[in-house]
């Protein structure tokens, strides 16, 4: 049985650090929206059967120095034929290229990684994908409440 951290508590702790560093509120919003985006994108992968974490894909999706079209073209190369990432998975897309972009990317990594850590924790249970997707839905609601 593997353990998994509580993402909402981790996010709270990170936001408190940012408050202590007197970061702009937009940076904190960017972090939370980034987390939700990372979770959405990892779910997009899980839904098409890609149940192994890929740092390469995560890094590609979190790269804010490239425009989104380039990012998606590259990331979609890793998807099965006929399947692609959904642009709508990017929550509050405007943060991706804003002054808070680094926090959006940080959040994206956190969220993406979390979904796969969660999946690993459920791996030896019945229908780990359904359990993971059910749990991430709840975590997203909790994250919205944090803001």
């Amino acid at each position, binding site marked *: 049985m593997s353990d998994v951290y509580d993402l909402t508590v981790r996010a709270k702790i990170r936001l408190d650090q940012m408050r*202590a560093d007197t970061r702009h509120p937009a940076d904190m919003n960017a972090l939370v929206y980034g987390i939700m985006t990372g979770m959405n994108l990892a779910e997009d992968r899980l839904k098409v059967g890609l149940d192994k974490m890929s740092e390469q894909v995560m890094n590609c999706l979190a790269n804010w120095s490239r425009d989104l079209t380039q990012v998606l073209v590259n990331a979609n190369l890793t998807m099965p034929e006929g399947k692609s990432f959904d642009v709508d998975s990017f929550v509050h897309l405007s943060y991706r290229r804003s002054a808070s972009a680094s926090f959006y990317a940080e959040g994206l990594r956190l969220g993406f990684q979390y979904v796969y850590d969660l999946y690993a924790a459920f791996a030896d249970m019945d229908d780990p994908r359904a359990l993971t997707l059910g*749990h991430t839905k709840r975590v997203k609601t909790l994250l919205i409440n944090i803001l």
Partner: protein
Amino acid sequence: MGYDIFDIRVVTLQSIKSFDHDGQLAYLSGLLWGLRVSAKWLEENGCTTYNEEVGAFFQARPTKKLFEIVDEWNSLQKNGLLLSVGDSFGGVWRLSKETIFFTGFEAGLQYVPKLYWSLSDDSTEKAKIIILVKDYVREIRNWVRETIENLAI
């Protein structure tokens, strides 16, 4: 500030997967009570440590009824760490699934102090952290209740 804490929802789902239906309900009922008790002790008594005596106290009285043990426990408390039968929801499991019920109860008792220390640091007031913990435990308890309801359907 703080450190990571495990996701108690995930751990709970992992913990109950091998139990039968009644066992799952017993564990969740115990967990609900443990969370309630330890959150109350934190809020009302400032108790930030796990109290290992209470579980042992119950286990040492296997034939007594739940409310009798609660009364006995409460009569012995000098530090105000009181229990309420009304919080337990799980008195029904006392006879049939006692071990599982108290495993859940202990899990709840242990979780709240861990959550407190995961959120605490040297600069944040204790009262603020307690509010955070209380809010978060409420969320967790809602999840436990929903899970119980889903199982009961």
